[in-house]
């Protein structure tokens, strides 16, 4: 008897677990998505790749916090033997240079974004309106620059000799101010999001085109304009190429460019100290961790603001098609 009841309870138990399993399966079964094992595998795949995308930044932060001795002994390790704030303390001695570079980058980014957004939205709004009889020609003027380029050397000569912008802040701002691709995107955006009927009624009320643009069109186009502003801000913040071409003056070097030069600067100090056999100076500069500390402070503003603007970025990328 005891055995029998045992068996029956076992059977009962099994049926319950089977029922639960079926319930669970029904819950996880997604008619639109992957099923079961494939789904888990895909999750693991994407999770590992997205971790791989962030990992180098974490790695650099760790290196910047490792003592120079640990670095010399164990190389760049994920689990350093000895943590240290030495690198960040050393940055204080470079305070002037760093602050100047931050200032240049900030000025270029803010001013550049304002100029860029103004020029691009005015141009693309004009070519999005049917009243403008030369809209086709002006669209072509912008579009053609996407197909054929003047090349680096003539561009360089124009900026240095024709405009004479070498070693000025404008050499960092103007070359990035306009981008034909954004103009085409914004034109589509204006066509779709600013209905002619609203503008017509404003015109009947006697508003001028510039007033209509500022008071009606811009508020309607905020999502698009914000996207262009975001693209532009990132382009200016991350730009080092124009500084590489046009800036020799150490007071005008932006942050990214300082990052490129710091390597040479520190190597220079190192070589000098090696030549003079002054090893105490060599040891006093936490070379690698300082470099990584500068990488960290140059990247941190983006890394911190990134989760907030990413949403708009993703949305903005898909607002306007390229096609007419």
């Amino acid at each position, binding site marked *: 008897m005891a055995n029998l009841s045992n068996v029956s309870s076992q059977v009962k138990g099994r049926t319950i677990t089977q029922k639960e399993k079926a319930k669970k399966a029904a819950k996880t079964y997604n008619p639109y998505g992957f099923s079961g094992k494939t*789904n888990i595998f895909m*999750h693991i795949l994407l999770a590992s790749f997205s971790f791989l995308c962030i990992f180098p930044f974490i790695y650099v932060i760790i290196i910047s916090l490792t003592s120079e001795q640990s670095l010399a002994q164990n190389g*760049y390790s994920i689990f350093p033997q000895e943590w240290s704030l030495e690198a960040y303390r050393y940055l204080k001695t470079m305070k002037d240079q760093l602050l100047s570079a931050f200032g240049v980058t900030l000025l270029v980014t803010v001013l550049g974004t304002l100029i860029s957004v103004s020029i691009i939205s005015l141009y693309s709004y004009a070519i999005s309106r049917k009243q403008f009889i030369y809209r086709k020609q002006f669209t072509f003027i912008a579009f053609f620059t996407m*197909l054929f*380029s003047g090349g680096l*050397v003539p561009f360089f000569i124009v900026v240095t000799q024709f405009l004479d912008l070498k070693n000025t802040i404008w050499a960092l701002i103007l070359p990035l101010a306009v981008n034909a691709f954004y103009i085409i995107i914004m034109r589509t955006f204006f066509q779709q999001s600013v209905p002619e009927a609203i503008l017509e009624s404003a015109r009947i009320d006697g508003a001028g085109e510039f007033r209509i643009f500022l008071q009606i069109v811009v508020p309607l186009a905020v999502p698009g304009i914000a996207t262009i502003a975001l693209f532009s801000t990132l382009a200016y913040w991350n730009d080092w190429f124009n500084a590489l071409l046009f800036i020799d003056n150490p007071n005008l070097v932006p942050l990214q460019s300082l990052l490129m030069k710091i390597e040479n600067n520190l190597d220079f100090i190192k070589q000098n100290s090696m030549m003079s056999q002054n090893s105490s100076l060599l040891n006093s500069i936490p070379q690698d961790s300082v470099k990584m500390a500068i990488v960290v402070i140059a*990247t941190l503003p983006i890394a911190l603001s990134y989760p907030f603007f990413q949403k708009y970025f993703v949305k903005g990328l898909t607002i306007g098609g390229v096609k007419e």
Partner: protein
Amino acid sequence: MKRLKKFGRNLYSNRIWLLMTLPGLIWFAIFAYLPMFGQVIAFKDFRYDADGFFASVKNSDWVGFENFRFLFSTNDAFIITRNTVLYNLLFIVLGLILAVGVAIILSEITKQKLAKVYQTGMLFPHFLSWVVVSYFVFTFLSMDRGMINGFLEHFGFEAISWYNEASFWPYILVAVSQWKGVGFSSIVYLAAIVGIDRSYYEAAMIDGASKWQQIWHVTIPMIMPIIIILTILNIGNIFSADFGLFYQIPRDSGPLYSVTNVIDTYVYRGLMTMGDIGMSTAAGLYQATVGFVLILIANYIVRKVDEDNALF
């Protein structure tokens, strides 16, 4: 005369729109069209003239195709063309497969909140400059301190001097470019996939299509237009390389030039380190012209196949 009058009237009645386009027009004139005109330097022996840009261009002597002959007489022209085209081809094919793949997976996995988290992670590298990325890569490839040599030595292999060993760089550059770009390029495809009408999938399911069949017969055909447009654009740009990738990531290391020198880095070095303006301009004009022809051809082919998907 009458036409001129009408043109004048048209200009006047469109003055407000012309005024709006004016700043952009000036920018295009100076930063895009003036350099295009400046390409004539490629046919000249360029000399700086104190009287400014136009005087410099005008007073330099014509040399015909001398600069081009010089460019193509060296082995460099072949190497930089080969590198540029092959890398870009790899980037286009691999980039397309990975980006579409990631987009499909992101759209199909359960727990869309997690999918958003993955996307945030994958997009992160796109926002970093190549300078920062080159430091990232250096932490892995540094000869004496890098992570990879650390592993190699730990398992008893010899350390590799990565920045002097050209044979690894094709793989490294491809990996880095995909690492930086996949998250970004998948966004557009993901948006296209999300926009597909769900009833197509329901119909496919009723007909008994498996998930893979749905992807193959519904998702991919539905996003084909955007795939084609982006691919034409990429093919049109096959002659222009991402300067940052090829200049910053190998840290301008000389022994790697045979596999890292592309047209863009060649032009840059010709201008900034060798000061050979004529030949650099010739290389730039060669790049721009072939690129222009390629994009016209690609667009022409697409228009023949399917007019709706052509770019212009």
